[in-house]
Structures are given as C-alpha cells and as structure tokens.
C-alpha cells in the first residue's frame, strides 16, 4: 500500500530547530534545515547522520525546501550543503533567498565571535550555498523532476514565508512552516486553497492559546514607550535585523506622526536601510494596505527613524533605539544596555524569545544583578518589559487552516508535547481525521489510498451503461474493458479498441479435454452416435455434424478418433473457447457419462 513517511530530526514535539524528512512515493524531501540557538556545539544542528544510513545524501534526498528566513528554519543550511556535503537542489521563495544570507551572516558573526568556535561555515560557504538555491514564486508549480512538484502558498509570519505543497502523482503533503492566520501591520494572512492533501504538517507553537487582540499588545507597547520618553528616559529595543523589527518600526513611525513626537528614534548598524530595501523590493509580499498606499507613501521610508551612530548613546534626553542582536548577548545592543541599565528612567523592551545564558534571558527572568565579563557587577535599574509580537497562528488559526485545506491526515510539529496533545484531540474530534505528533527521530507512517483518474472511451461507456441499471452518480459502477497505461495516463477502452491501438492480433484460447468412451464401431459411426445423442439432449443449441466427421455445438468442437492401442476405445477430443466455458464443461461431463445404448 502506498505510504508517506515523516521523520522530524528537529521540531518534533519541540520548538528548537525545524528539520522534517518526508518520503512520498519514493521521493525524499527535507523540509527546513534549522539550527538551535541555545547550543554552542554540534547540538545546534540537526543530526544529519540519521537521514541515510547508506549512500550519499545527494543521492538520497531529492530536494530541500526552506519555508522562511528565521534561523530555526534555515540556520543549518550552509553547514548541510557546504560541510556535510549535500549538493542537490534547495528551494525557497525569492524574498527568503534574498534575506537568508543577511541572517546567516549575522549568526556566523555571533558564533565566530565566540572563542573556540571552529567547524563553522564561512561567508564564502554562505554565498556558495545561496547560489545553489532555486527561488520560487507564490503559486508557481515547480517541477523538481518529472514526477515531484512543489508549490508555494503565502504564510504571513515574516516577509517571504511560505507553506509548501509537495506532490508526487496524486499523493501530496503540505508543510506550513511558521504561519499566521491574521494579518499584521506589514504582512497579510496565510492562505491555501482546498488542496485536500494526504497530509498536512502544521506548526503548533500556539496549540492551546487563543491570542488576545494584537491591538491591545500594540497599545500597551506604545504606551510604555511613550511614558518612558515623556519622562526623559531612553528606550532600548533589542531586535534581530529583519522581521519583527520592521513591524515595530511601522508602529512607532505612525504613532510618532500622529502624536507629533520629537524624541529621536534610531535603528542601529545600518540594518534599517538594508532591511527596508528588501521590504520595498518585495512589496508584493506585504499586506494589502501597504501595497495600496505604496504609490503615495512608502511605509518603509521612515521620517522619524534615523540611522544610529554609537556616539548618540551618550546624548542627553530621551530617545528610542532599535539595536541588534535581539538577545542582548553581544555587540551593540549589549553595549547600549550596559550604558543605560543603571538608570531607572530608562526601559528595555524585549520583543522576542531569548535563549538561556544570554543577558536577555537573565533580565527577562527577573535577574537584576548581572556579572559582566567577570569584571564587574552591573545593576539593572532600568525597567524590563517583555512584549510578544511573534506572528504564529493560534489554536483558532490552526483549525481554520485545516478547514481550508481539508487534509486527510494532520501531523503537528514545532510545538510543545503537552499542548500538541490537546490540539491533536481537538483536531481528531472536529475533523474526524487522524492526527500525529511524532517526537524527534520517530517515524510516522501514513497509508494513502490514491485515487487514480482513468479516462474511458465514450463508446465503451455507452455500451457498459446500456447493460444493467440506469447509472447513478452516487454509486460506484463496475466497468469492463481493457486498461491501457501509457505515457503517464490511464484509459479504459474496449478490447477491440485496445488491440487496434496497440497493433496487436487477437489470439483465441481454446480449452481442450479428452474423453474416452467404449465403442468398438468405426470412428465416423461413433461420431454419428455422439451427434445424435447431443442433438437429443441439447435441444436449444445448434448442433451440427460437419462433413469431416466432427461435431460442433456453438463454438465447441468434438472429434472422435480411435485409441492407438485399443480399437475398442474411442477418444473424443472436445475443445471450446473461454466464452463457452460453461457449455464446454457441461458437455464433457455429459460425454464422460458415456453414450446411451445404440439408437441407430
């Protein structure tokens, strides 16, 4: 039975690093190739040695698909393609291809910055990896090979994020990556057509959460920033170069405009230009509002947000600074934090997740005395706020997507086990489909029942429907014909048509049987006795005695010959076609009983 196999190497019951292997109709695809920011050793990458026990990766995997540019989805890609040795095709959307290298460079920088970090990809490797990437458009069907095709759908979440449909023949899988079912300030909502895949692999970060209105969170954020600035304090917002930063920039820009605020807003390290360049370049990937107003005013050309110079940090008076990196673990954001932490008038707003060990993680968990580089204790007096702006579908959104795509099975990844369990039950109850949640390293096998469309010739259809009851669209009907499988298509035609098309001659198969009877007479006399006997018994059939002495009953032929050793025994050779099989067996059994006493 055809089957689809799914093995997460990452994101199976966790939100660490996404990497899901899918086998569908003999094709092997890797979905995402992410890294875990919480580790500094081999554990940060998925263990690729499990992909294939024998043979080369490039021979085993047909392609790699990257859903979006976040590092937990693409961070291991250069390692995989340039160091582990995968040399096959990699697919992602155009914006993802453009933005990926920036984040990978950022990550590399942070990593090599750390002492003793070897065995790591270089800038050249990132470039070589990106040159292997085939960029795809939304809704474009891309043929990976003759049978495997993929198609991208809009996923919201971040610029360029996509869900991918993977299809081989009539079997298909949809992988959502991370997605968001509600539009935000710069992106639209995820959308997919009713593609009825055999399997939907969906993220489940917020499996049990119904998120509060985003407007409340935004209002809260603006209020906090505004209050701090009003009392003359400075606001630090540590961010990663791309993604949430842009949304917050739009938010502050419009607020500043509306309230006519004068305090400066800065975005550090020149990333704003670069990031905004991409948002402008890929304007079609943003939401409707941004696209509509683009001609009058480009949302990404900020009036109030200026490039940051490190000397500005010491300027007196209020200001808001977006600085990288987002977890306060190195670089400029940490340097500014150290300067401002001692003043209770200031505030740091953490808009995203921080891994253990980082300063961001420490202050979020309430630590207020931090040892910096073993030299000094930094007392954190500034206010610390956490604001979640991560753009994932909540439980409602996930259910909505399932309703939209109508999958036959659902598999949950990128979430916590307990929450997944709850959502799994909900999905199974509401949609009556099987739902799976494999842990990392566990393989889920889904049996598919592919329905294969077959064309039928009109002549045969008419002939077949003429037999039996009138056709009923809701009931299956048995058809007889010859199935021709040619050039990837299936057609049911009449046997005559099939012979004609394929240029074949018809062969007649005949069944034969020998019946021995005791009759000392000459052969022709025995034949005559048989003829008379049959004529008497088979009144409704056409029984004929041919001039050569043989007898026919419909297509059945009977010949009498003398036994080579015993002249008293005659051998009746009975032969018949497949169509007259019933009559043929009846006749042989009749003859085996012997001839009635002579009537002549």
């Amino acid at each position: 039975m055809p089957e689809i196999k799914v093995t997460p190497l990452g994101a199976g019951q966790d939100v660490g690093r996404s990497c899901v292997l899918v086998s569908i109709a003999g094709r092997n695809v890797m979905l995402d190739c992410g890294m875990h920011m919480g580790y500094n050793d081999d554990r940060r990458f998925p263990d690729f040695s499990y992909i294939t026990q024998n043979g080369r990766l490039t021979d085993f995997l047909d392609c790699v698909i990257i859903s979006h540019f976040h590092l937990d989805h693409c961070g291991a890609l250069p390692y995989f393609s340039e160091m582990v040795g995968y040399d096959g095709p990699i697919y992602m959307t155009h914006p993802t291809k453009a933005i990926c290298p920036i984040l990978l460079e950022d990550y590399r920088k942070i990593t090599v910055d750390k002492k003793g970090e070897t065995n790591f990809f270089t800038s050249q490797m990132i470039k070589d990896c990106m040159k292997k990437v085939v960029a795809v458009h939304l809704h474009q069907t891309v043929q990976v090979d003759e049978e495997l095709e993929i198609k991208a759908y809009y996923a919201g979440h971040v610029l360029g994020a996509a869900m991918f449909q993977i299809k081989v023949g009539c079997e298909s899988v949809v992988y959502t990556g991370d997605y968001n079912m509600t539009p935000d300030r710069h992106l639209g909502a995820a959308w997919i057509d009713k593609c009825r895949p055999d399997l939907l692999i969906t993220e489940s970060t917020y499996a049990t959460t119904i998120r509060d209105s985003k407007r409340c969170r935004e209002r809260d954020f603006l209020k906090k920033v505004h209050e701090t600035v009003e009392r003359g304090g400075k606001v630090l917002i540590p961010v990663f170069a791309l993604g949430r930063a842009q949304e917050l920039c739009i938010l502050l820009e419009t607020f500043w405009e509306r309230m006519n605020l004068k305090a400066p807003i800065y975005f550090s390290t020149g990333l704003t230009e670069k990031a905004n360049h991409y948002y402008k370049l890929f304007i079609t990937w943003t939401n409707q509002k941004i696209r509509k107003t683009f001609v009058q005013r480009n949302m990404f050309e900020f009036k109030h947000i200026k490039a940051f110079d490190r000397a500005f940090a010491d300027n007196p008076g209020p200001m808001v600074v977006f600085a990288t990196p987002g977890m306060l673990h190195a670089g400029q954001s940490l340097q500014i934090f150290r300067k401002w932490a001692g003043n209770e008038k200031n505030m740091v707003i953490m808009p995203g997740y921080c891994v253990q060990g980082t300063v961001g993680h420490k202050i979020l968990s309430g630590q207020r005395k931090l040892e910096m580089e073993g030299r000094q204790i930094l007392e954190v007096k500034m206010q610390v706020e956490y604001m979640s702006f991560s753009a994932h579908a909540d439980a409602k959104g996930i259910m909505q997507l399932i309703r939209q795509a109508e999958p036959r099975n659902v598999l949950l990844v990128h979430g916590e086990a307990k929450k997944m369990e709850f959502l799994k039950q909900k999905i199974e109850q509401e949609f009556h489909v099987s739902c799976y949640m494999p842990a990392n390293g566990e393989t889920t096998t889904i049996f598919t029942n592919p329905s294969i469309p077959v064309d039928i010739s009109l002549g045969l259809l008419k002939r077949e429907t003429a037999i039996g009851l009138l056709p009923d669209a809701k009931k299956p009907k048995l058809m007889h014909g010859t199935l021709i499988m040619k050039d990837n298509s299936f057609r049911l035609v009449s046997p005559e048509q099939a012979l004609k098309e394929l240029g074949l001659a018809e062969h007649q198969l005949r069944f034969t049987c020998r019946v021995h009877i005791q009759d000392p007479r000459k052969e022709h006399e025995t034949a005559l006795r048989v003829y008379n006997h049959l004529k008497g018994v088979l009144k409704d059939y056409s029984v004929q005695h041919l001039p050569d002495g043989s007898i026919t009953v419909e297509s059945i032929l009977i010949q009498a010959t003398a036994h080579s050793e015993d002249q008293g025994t005659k051998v009746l050779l009975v032969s018949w076609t497949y169509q007259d099989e019933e009559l043929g067996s009846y006749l042989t059994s009749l003859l085996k009983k012997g001839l009635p006493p002579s009537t002549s």
Partner: protein
Amino acid sequence: MSRQCALLLPRVCAALADPRQPGSDDTCLEKMLDWFRELREGEPTEKLLQDNPCLTEFFSSVLALPEPNPSILSFTLRLAGILAAAEDCFQHLQQRQLLVRLFGEGGPLSSAAWEDASVRSGWVEGVHSMVQHQPALHFICSGGGIDVVFTLQGDPSLFVASAASRLLVHMLTLSVGPEVTLPLNAKDCDWPACAQMIVKHIEDSLQSSSASHIKQSLKLLTSLFGSCQATWTKVLWLGVAKQVESFLTEDSVQAQHMLPDLLLNMARSPVFRDTEGSFWALVTSALEHLTPLQAGPLAVGILKLFQCPQDVRIQALTVLLQPMDCILRAASQPLEYAGLVDESVSDPSTVENLLSSKSSCASLLCQTLAHLEELLSVAYLRVDLPSATLVRSVVIILQFCNGLLIPASPLGSKISQILIGCFRVQRSALDALAALSQWKRCDTVVESLFDVLLAYLESPNTSPTVLKKSFQAMAKWLVHLLHKSFKKQRQTEKSLQDVLLVLQKRLCSPCWEVRDSSLEFLTKLIACLRDQDEFRQSLLSSEVPKLTENLLEDPESYVRASAVTAVGHLAFLTYFFFPESPVAGNQYNKENTVAKLQEILSTDPEVFPRRAVMSIFTMWLQQCCTGELEETERFVSRVIQITERDLDWEVRLGCLEMVQIFTIYMFCRFGLPECPYTPVPSAVTSSISWCEPLQIFCRVKLFGFLFRSLCDCDKPVGQKACDILLALKSHFCQSSMIDSQGSGDLAAGRGIPWLQRTLRQGSLAENFSTGGGNGVDFEDPESMMLALRTIDFEELHSDLNKCSDHVEKSPQSLLEDILAAVGTIEENEADCY
C-alpha cells in the same frame, strides 16, 4: 564544585522536582548534564554525592511523582547514569535502592511515561553512562535490563534504536574486555555471562525469520567491528559468518544493502584483514552478488584500503568502471572500442539494464562519478586508473546530458534520452571531470573535453549551479595545461580565447549567480596564471577587464564583492607586476582603481563589497604593491580614516589586519627584524632614527584607531588591536630605547592615566574621542611612546580573552537562570523566533 554552586544546587533540584513548576528549558537540562560530566572528571563522585545530598533526594522525589514530566524524568535517568559511572557512586546509589527504582523493572520502564521517546532515550543514555564497570554491567544483565535494550533496538524512534545498538556494542566490549584470548572456535568459546547473552541474541536474530531483527543484528555487528579490533571479534564472526554470507543471495530478507558497511568495517580491522582467504572470498562474492548500486560503496571502500589482495582490488575497480565502460560502449561503434574492463570477469548486462532504466540510470551514474571523484583524491591508490579513458567516458556523459551526442546504438540512444537535461548527472560529471584534471596522462582527450565544457559554458540551458561547476572544471584544466605545456598545446591557447569570449557573455548574464561564478572563475585564473605572458595578453586584449570593472556597480552585493576581488587581482597584471606591459594602456590606471575601491569602502551600503576591498588592500600591501613609502603612508592613512567608523566589525578587523602588515613593513624598512613581505630586505640605514616608524604611525593616525578598537563592542576587533599594540610595545619599548628616550615629559603624559583608567574599566566606548579632547594626543609620538610603555596590554589582553562573548557559560550562571525561570510567565517559553 564551587561553593556558590553547592549553595544553589539544592534549590535547583527542588525546583526541578516540583511538578507545579513549568518544565525547564531543555537546553538548561542538557547544559546541567554537561556540567556534571565535567565534575565527574574533576572530583571523586562519591564525595560529590555525599557533599550534595540534594542529588539523591532529587532522584527520590522524581521517582515519587505520580506523573513526572517526561523531560525531567529523562534528565533524572541520564544524571543518575553519569553519577553511577564511578563504582563507589554506583554502590552509594545502589544501597539506597535508587538505581533499581530508576532502571529496574518497577521503574519508569513499566510506567506510562515509557511511551515518551525522551524517557526511553534517557534510560538508554543513563545505562550507557553507568555501564563503565563490572558491577553496573552485572546489574543490567541480571536485572532484566539487557532484554529491554534488545527490545529498544527496534524502537520506533531512530535515536533510541541507534543508542540501544551502541549500548550493546559497548556492553559486549566491556564484558569481554580487551585482552581476553578466546579459543578460535565459536562453539567452545566461554564468553563471559553478559557477552554470552548478547552473542546469543545476535546469533538468534540472524537466524530468525524477522527481517528487522536480522537488520538490527547486522547493524550491531557493523558498529562492533568498526569500533573494536580485539581478536575475540573474530570468534564472534566465525559463529555467524555462514548466516551472514547467506544474506548475499537470499532475496527474501533484503539485507544486502547492509553488507557493504559491515564488510568494509571488517576489512579495515587487522583481525579480519590479515586472515586467510575466506574473508576476502566473501568480499569477492559480495562484489559479484550485490547490485551495482549496492556494490559501489563497497568497491570504493576496498580501493581506498592500504592492505588488500590485488585481485579483490581489481574486482572492485571493475565494479566502479563498469558503468563508465557501458557508456563508452554505448557511444561507440562496436569495433572501435577496446573496453575499460575485462568482460570475462564481469557481466555487463546488469549494468546495461540499470542504465537503460529511467529510474536507476541517473542514480547509478551519479554514484559512480562521485566514487571516482573520491578515488581520485586518494594519494596512495594501489591500482592504476585508466584516466584518459575515464575522461572520455565523463565527456560522453556530459555530451549525452546536453544533447551533443545522440548515438546510433540502441543502448546509447536510450541512455542519451534519459540523461538529456539531467542536472544531477551534469553536476556529478563536472565534479569528476575537475578531479580528473589532477591526474596524469589525460592530454589526448583534451580537445573534446574543452569542446564539451565550452558547450556548457555557452549554452543558455545550463543551470547556474551547473555553470559554476563547468567554470570550476574549466579553470582546473586550463591551469593544469597552461602550466604544463602552454606552447605545445595550441589547442589550449585557442580554448583560452574561446573561454574569454564566453566569459564576456556570462559577465553580462541577467542571473547574479552566473555573473558571480564568472568573476570567481576569472579571479582564479588570474591568481594561477598571472605569470603566463600568453594568458596576460589574451586577457588584457579582451573586453573582460572592462566588463569586470563595470560590475563594481552591480546591483547585487555578492557580485560587487567578487568584482572587487577580480579587479584587485587584475591590478597585478595591469600595473603592479607589469607596469611597462604594452597591452596595459591608459584605461588601466592604478589611481583610478584605488580611488574606485576606496569609494566602495566608504559608500557601499552592503558589507560584502567593503570586506572584499579590505582583503584586496591587505593583499596589495602584503605583496608590496602600494608604491613607495610616502604613497603607502597616504594609502594606509586614507583607509584607516574610511574604515574606523565602519558599521561592520569584519571590515574594521580587516583594516586592523592591514595595519598589522603595515607596521611589520615599516619595521623592516627601518631595519628592525626581518619582514616576510619585503621582496628585497631594505638596507639598514642607521642614519634614520628608530622612531621614524613611530612618527609615521602617528601621522597615519594609527594609534587613535588602535585605541578606539580596543574598546570595540565586537570582541575580535579589540583582541586584534591589543595584539598589534603588544607587538608595537615590544618593538618600541626595548630597554635601550627607553633609556635613550627617558620617561617622557609631563605634558605628553597628561592624558595617559585617563587612558589607562578608562581602558581598565573596559568602557571606553562612544565617548572615546581620538581628537585629543581628553588630554591624549594620539598623533604625538612621545605621548604614544609613553602610552605604550605605561599601559599594561598583557592584562588587557587576558581580560579580552577571558570571555569572548557575553553568553555566560559558568555553571553558577546556569543554576541562577534555572532558579530565576521558576515562576516566569509561561508565554515567554512558548514564544520562539
């Protein structure tokens, strides 16, 4: 364990065992285990348990939980295993019945938590850590634990199954011990109890009718022979050899694909390698019976062995060459072709069938080509590769793939139909072709080789990845042949012209990947062939240099960066090494190029081109191409001025590297220790004062840049600056010089204490003005001399090295983080990137 950690640990244990607390971040638990592993290395474990009774209490508390969190339970099992690895600690935990409750039948094994793969994984890993001594081995074997491990070999989780297999290998090795000599007869062998159980399990599984059991045992044997080379492994093998051999021919089991790895691991072990012919007979039989796709990895492994019978090698080579032979045959007239392999040794029909099937043709060719490429990189290959014929066959494959050759033979036409447009095979073939350039005796087929490569480079259907590989292969062959016998090979010269024409076209490609690969190709050629007159003339008389310069303004930053590198290399041809070159006309003006690159360095919004400029400038300086002293001084001064406020730390670091070379260059010039970069050591001019370099450094504003960099927010920059300052100090502050200079006047030293203090605080940062506002004149040689003498750069250096990033790696920080996370809002944890 430090005192602070010992104080924190009880609270951490209590928090972890508290079911009301939300599960801790998995990375924290992993890092805690890492810490305990380190502790175990450093101090007696029993003392660790005695000093920290909270650990045993933690085990008891977790065991007492009705529904423990799976990740905490898994952590508990692994931690217990790590601690119990020491025998005294094992006894300590045994006495408290903790190990039985954790790893025995009544423990998690029989609870609902066992359903969770992380718990099973924790159990296997815990046992693996623990089984380092005989009592632990006995505990697992006698308590039924070994049966659990046997079962886990077939676990639905790949991770658990694989860990179980590794554990069995470890237990078997530990049980038998390294030095045991056993009789060379499996039947009479008196295995130790645990080993006996495992050996029996292996034998039974191999004889069972279950394919999965057979595969598990084959996997176990593979990993055993791969990791253990004790003589007893042979005894074990003798017991199962017949059975394993039967799998070669038994289709029902379908275990053939597992045999190459097993046989290879055995072939690498001296235990099997040196024995009489039976093992090699099995290898030979495997090479015969396995399908070409299965036999390929075995063949390549065999050929890489140093010790192996020559006839087995020849057979392995036949396996690899057969597909290539088939290709050659398919493309030739029957009488034309002598053949690569001896057909009396091997039957080509299987390979022919595979090559004429759509589903297997590309796979077989890709695998074979990859294997050949692998072999070509082996230095001590013990067989002769027919390289010229191989080049021919690879060329034919490439011709099939782009429709250049459609042979008349049925097999050939079938293969060419399958391969046409197949990128996979194209990529593998081009890699193999590039590797073949290093091999001798290939020159006879050069013409067709260049033709096919040019066809790929010219064809609009060539994909960017294939094009890149075509360029790489072309570069290797061109360099190889031009270096070798340029004058003899007119063909090569013509090819070079053709390549330059293609390059002109490709440099204007709308696809950035293609433009970039073209520039990389050009740089590679220049780097390797810049001494070749013919190459130089051909290149400079073409349009390529002009087009390359145009790409300095490419919209794609990667391309701009590659263009910078190419232009930087071109400079060697146009004016650095051959200033009088007749072809180097006015269009190649050094000042223009330098100005252009400096403009990129100061204005390009993307990092890659700016980094590339820094690398080129450094390379120029290294090769003494920046002109006379004054010119070089101006050059360095300008670059420092542009770069010191660059937003990218790698650009700043690049500039520091250039500065480092500049300082060495100066010292050589003025007679200080020998300089690796000066082609002719300059005469020591005693009349020039040693302090002239110091004055030059001050003039180019080098000190301001270095001191500013010391406080850079990116650590590598600070470290590099410190390295350079240390070197300067050692040059300038030799005792004789100090004596001659005295201790400097007070005016010069006014700002130095401030500088010293600020550097010590490590917070120089933004308010650090190099304009003299703080009383320090960074352009005054005397002040700088004083600064070099006074400031303790050694101490600074060690501070900078102490913690190269801000992620606190100390266990104390980890424990504090775990404690601090207790009670934080759950939403923080659910969030992700």
